[in-house]
């Protein structure tokens, strides 16, 4: 069940949309904001509010990389693996983070603290290698600064 606040926020988005399905991404993001991901139940509720079938909305939800249809940790690490970051040390950073947290790409730590994802170019090539944790951008990230960055997130 969506909360009253979620329904209200989605209604607000709908006011600005010419057709209800145009609010799909915004509405999914409303749900994801508090819950971290979009469950099947949430997807059905949002679909109903947007006058879409669950399948129609799922086709949209699964297309976009940053709508999560599986549970993620409290914080999502998006590590850029595109060419500039790759050439400036992505593989070493990945190995380091992966060893420290005990997870690979697409996995979540046992304590639910972090999910690690590969990211396509973050638009920070002058700060390569770059990564984002939730909405915050870091770069250049070095093996020395990894601990400090991760320690900011509990």
């Amino acid at each position, binding site marked *: 069940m969506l909360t009253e606040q979620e329904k209200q926020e989605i209604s607000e988005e709908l006011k600005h949309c010419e057709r209800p399905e145009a609010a799909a991404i915004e509405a999914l993001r409303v749900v994801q904001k508090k819950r971290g991901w979009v469950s099947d139940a949430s997807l059905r509720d949002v679909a109903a509010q947007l006058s879409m079938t669950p399948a129609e909305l799922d086709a949209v939800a699964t297309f976009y990389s940053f709508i999560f249809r599986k549970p993620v940790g409290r914080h999502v690490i998006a590590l850029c693996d595109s060419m500039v970051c790759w*050439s400036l040390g992505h593989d070493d950073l990945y190995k380091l983070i992966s060893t420290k947290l005990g997870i690979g790409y697409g996995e979540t730590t046992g304590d639910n603290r972090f999910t690690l994802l590969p990211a396509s170019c973050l638009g920070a*090539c002058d700060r390569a290698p770059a990564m984002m944790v939730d909405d915050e951008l870091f770069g250049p990230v070095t093996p020395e600064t990894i601990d400090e960055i991760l320690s900011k997130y509990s």
Partner: protein
Amino acid sequence: MERPLTKNIRPNEDPLSLMEYEQAGGYRAVRTMLSTMSPQDVQVQVKASNLRGRGGAGFPTGMKWSFVPMGENAPKQKYFIVNADEMEPGAFKDRYLLEGDPHQLIEGIVVAAYAIQASHAYIFLRQGYGRAELLLNKAIAEAYENKLLGENILGSGFSLDLRIHTSAGRYICGEETALINALEGKRATPRAKPPFPQVSGLWGRPTVVNNVETVVNLPHIVNNGADWFKSIGGINDSGTKIYGVSGRVRNPGLWELPMGTMVSDLIEEQAGGMMDGYRLRAFMPGGASTDFLTPDHMNVRMDFDSVMKAGSRMGTGTITVLDDRTCPVGFVHSLEKFFRRESCGWCTPCREGLPWIERTLQAIETGKGEMSDLDLLTEQCRLLGPGNTFCALAPGAVEPLQSALKYFLEDFESHINNKHCPWKSI
């Protein structure tokens, strides 16, 4: 040297508020335009300026606009969209403009929307540009409060609604018809053209999509005229360009310089040359979908036509360098991995060809390649090339591959012959 696009940008500081922006001469173009110019006047001026689209393709902006139906019989609802979906690996210039001077973008939007008589405008912003979103929202609110957006702008009778759509990822959203599908709340797959968006775009209505850097040029063209715009450019092309260099250079960054600035000036002077102990092996002039060029091309001018003549494309104008201590096969593998992941899957050559290319490159990089793989890759470059796919993603993906096979053939062969990556044992 004039730097109209970046003169207000103060690195590491908040951008100018509306008041500060106006004190610096901002919104003068909107005021002049709304009181003294017809939409046609603006279109004529932009056409005369030879402004070419800064998103990568270099299509003349005035000509792009000219296909929009105008006049009394034209649809009342038309759309203007800013493409701020900067996701091309190697490109980071639009972030600088979005975060650095949001009012300049809004002013450009009002100019463009007035020129094509659009009633609604959107900024299609990529995922992950949260700071840009915050600053743009603040600037948009200020503009509404001061009658620079909304109903009856500055009492002119012209109205414009402006909203931001923040995307949830996927490079393909930068393709303008895929972007329109994304705005409609659909999967971002490209549409067949024709009809072109200028005639039938968002919700089937006339729509123009322009890149961020293109749009921020508009107020300056209105203020100073087409001849001025040509005069601040280079031999072949008008205006300034936000150039960038990233990779193993001493001083990676962005610089606004006259169109046609030489590659050597950007890499050697602005970026300070290669880091100590590294030499330039090759470079991509403007993002992951542009053919490699080599140190022999250091005297190429960075404008659309000159880079094309040299065998590549200027693209976004943000150069990526490949140094001599990075494996070129691994580098190309990394970028094909990007294209494989970002293919929307709509058409067969792209959906099936890119994973094949990526697997083949991975095999070569890990010492499991065969000589026949090189013929296979060459064949894929043809199959995924222009004319065989729905949009430009796959042709863009094979541009660097075909030039890599040309310039780094020995490296490919040594991986295959020696059954390992020579860079891995260093």
